[in-house]
């Protein structure tokens, strides 16, 4: 195992540990913080592969915008509610995870090679209509959500 694989494995272990923290904590605020830490470690894995545009997307949008809003909402509704974890669900999850891990190790047969990393600069031209469509869709969703929220009687 070389140093890059070790870095990725360590970041992955911390990401899984943070996601387990989301599952185990009873406070919504700490759960949102653990979620943000998980996303940061996902960004760290991308940084290990020198994919800076995706690191920026994950760090700015996922952690900077979505994560902070989630933390703010979780801090507002910081109710200590009891979880309804059932041991009935834990066993199938462990079995499925074991099958997936065995399949990943069994089916991975050759190395991958990342090429043509400068394509991100061509994204606004190649996928112009997709980006415009997504912006329009998000604006429509925002307007619909604001209308629904304002239309509810107190």
């Amino acid at each position, binding site marked *: 195992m070389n140093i890059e*694989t070790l870095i990725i494995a360590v970041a*992955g272990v911390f990401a899984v540990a943070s996601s387990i923290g989301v599952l185990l904590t009873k406070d919504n605020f700490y759960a949102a913080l653990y979620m943000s830490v998980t996303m940061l470690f996902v960004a760290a894995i991308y940084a290990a592969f020198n994919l800076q545009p995706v690191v920026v997307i994950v760090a700015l949008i996922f952690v900077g915008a979505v994560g902070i809003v989630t933390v703010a909402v979780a801090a507002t509704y910081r109710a200590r509610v009891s979880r309804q974890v059932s041991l009935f669900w834990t066993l199938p999850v462990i079995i499925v*995870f074991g099958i997936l891990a065995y399949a990943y*190790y069994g089916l991975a047969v050759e190395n991958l090679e990342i090429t043509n990393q400068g394509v991100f600069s061509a994204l606004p031209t190649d996928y112009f209509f997709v980006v415009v469509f997504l912006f329009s869709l998000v604006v429509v969703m925002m307007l619909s959500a604001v209308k629904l929220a304002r239309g*509810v009687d107190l």
Partner: protein
Amino acid sequence: MIDVGVSQLSVILTVSGAILLIAYLTAVSSKDLIRLLISLELMFAAVFLAILPLFSINPSMAYAVAIVTAFTSSGELLVLITAIIMLDRRKRGIEVEKVAVGGDSI
């Protein structure tokens, strides 16, 4: 140019699967909408990690998928926050048990 080894690929996909399954377990065990929102964001984080091998096959498509995932996550966050506000105003709480209407009853 970056080479992705077999062991690295296995670690990435295993971590992605583990995060996804933990997010599923969090979703089925959540009793309020906040925890449900957090579990959905964890699922998007797992998806973000799972598309990393696509960068070696078609980087342009992989970047597009990453951006679509970010937009989808943002829209889902907005809609779910609206649902939380509406449920809080109507039911004076955000617990899942307060939703009395639903399911597949005919």
